[in-house]
């Protein structure tokens, strides 16, 4: 339980607020790479502000506020030039760093151009996504987390959800929900609709634990029939502060990304890499992305797959869940730990320090701890994952299953 003021501070991501200032220290996906291949400029909304994201003919990426500093027409309809983005209305040209380079209708001898620098951010491509940074300079490095650089077959499901991102992140430090939301509730839905829910999700939690580490919080669990020697406890998987969760198992590596689009909208992305051993991966000139369903035609949440159940639980808490009337128990200590972490990182930013998870050294790859043998379920987990989770909506779902089966058969022969 929190006071209304604390809840307000935790969830308000506008510029100048403590949470808004903290979140502006990180890079976020703002477009799929294929989108800017199809058309080189587009609108993006991030942290409650509107942006124009673009790619020049030479392959450089840029991001600047959507409203032109001149008369506020949309730069998302701009003309992409070799050195920046030109407003479609009167032709003002802004460089990648936001400098106003041309004002075609103004006289050259004035210094008017120098008054109207746009607040440009930085943009880069990595792993099939275009990433934007819109905070203070100098910008930190774009973290090259393992899933974004590893070999394998990529697959991105996504949906824009009508709720604040913090309640989604709190789910990432709440292991107990799995056995009910994805276990008992899944079984109930299956009984009603005539399918069998995967048994591995229903295993009772014997013990949960949380450790702060350099990238966030490692979540650990011991489920019934397993021990502390098993991956779920010995390795666990991390909440990657402040807006990701790294999960995996049975040769599927995944980052669950929760981009704060604005205070009451979160882009939920499931960035998966299918990487079974002993098989050659097919070429992927374009990383497939696809919408995952949130609602049925009758307006109720679609809850016959794992992430649909999560989405139902996140969204039905309310656009901004009212934490003044919640009742946390001992099993929610991970949630209290995350709130404390948000608060302490806000304090660091207010003191002029870099918050947790910002990196300034160039690097090739950041490996995150993540269990391999999920819920002690063995290789069946990969097929359950594709059949019963968001990957079932992927245009390449059948090919992904075949990939895992072929690799499994190959491993059995050797």
């Amino acid at each position: 339980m929190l006071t209304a003021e604390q809840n307000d501070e935790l969830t308000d991501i506008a510029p100048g607020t403590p949470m808004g200032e903290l979140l502006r220290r990180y890079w976020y996906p703002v477009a799929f790479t294929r989108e800017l291949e199809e058309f080189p400029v587009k609108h993006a909304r991030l942290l409650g502000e509107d942006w124009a994201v673009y790619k020049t003919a030479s392959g450089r990426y840029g991001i600047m506020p959507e409203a032109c500093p001149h008369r506020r027409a949309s730069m998302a309809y701009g003309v992409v030039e070799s050195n920046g983005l030109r407003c479609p209305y009167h032709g003002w040209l802004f460089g990648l760093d936001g400098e106003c380079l041309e004002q075609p209708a103004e006289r050259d001898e004035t210094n008017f151009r120098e008054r109207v620098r746009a607040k440009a951010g930085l943009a880069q491509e990595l792993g099939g996504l275009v990433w934007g940074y819109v905070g203070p300079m100098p910008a930190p490095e774009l973290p090259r987390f393992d899933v974004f650089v590893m070999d394998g077959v990529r697959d991105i499901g996504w949906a824009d959800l009508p709720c604040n991102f913090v309640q989604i992140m709190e789910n990432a430090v709440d292991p107990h929900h799995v056995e009910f939301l994805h276990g008992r509730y899944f079984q109930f839905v299956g009984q009603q609709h005539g399918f069998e829910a995967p048994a591995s999700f229903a295993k009772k939690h014997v013990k949960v634990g949380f450790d702060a580490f350099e990238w966030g919080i490692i979540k650990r669990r011991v489920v019934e029939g397993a021990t502390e020697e098993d991956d779920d406890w010995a390795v666990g998987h991390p909440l990657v502060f402040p807006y990701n969760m790294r999960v995996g198992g049975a040769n599927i590596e995944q980052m669950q990304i929760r981009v704060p689009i604005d205070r009451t909208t979160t882009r939920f992305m499931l960035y998966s890499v299918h990487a079974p051993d002993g098989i050659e991966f097919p070429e992927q000139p374009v990383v497939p992305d696809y919408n995952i369903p949130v609602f049925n035609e009758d307006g109720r949440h679609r809850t016959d797959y794992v992430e649909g159940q999560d989405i139902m639980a996140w969204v039905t808490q309310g656009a901004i869940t009212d934490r003044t009337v919640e009742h946390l128990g001992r099993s929610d200590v991970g949630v209290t730990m995350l709130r404390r972490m948000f608060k302490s990182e806000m304090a660091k930013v207010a003191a002029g320090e870099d918050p947790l998870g910002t990196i300034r050294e160039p690097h090739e790859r950041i490996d995150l701890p993540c269990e391999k043998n999920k819920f002690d379920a063995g290789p069946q987990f990969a097929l359950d994952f594709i059949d019963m989770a968001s990957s079932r909506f992927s245009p390449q779902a059948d090919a992904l299953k075949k990939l895992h089966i072929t690799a499994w058969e190959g491993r059995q022969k050797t």
Partner: protein
Amino acid sequence: MSTSPRGIDQSFGLDVGRGYFPADADSHRRDAPRFCPSCAAPLALADGGRGLAVEYWIGADRVFVCYCAACHWSGDIVLAERVMGHEAVE
């Protein structure tokens, strides 16, 4: 990527219409620790502090997970219904 409404959010209030436990919310506001046990800086935003007190329950005990942004002290403060000692080892 987004098709959401545009403009900077500044007017959203809290979703207080869904409150079902006003008595517990009142108790929280009344009983949450107001000052840091370490440096005495105010914790509550309402008192001008920058700290945090998250409340959870263990049976009848009320636990406040506290953080002070002034000195970075962090710890739990428990309003305990009973105080128990060790039980004898059998």
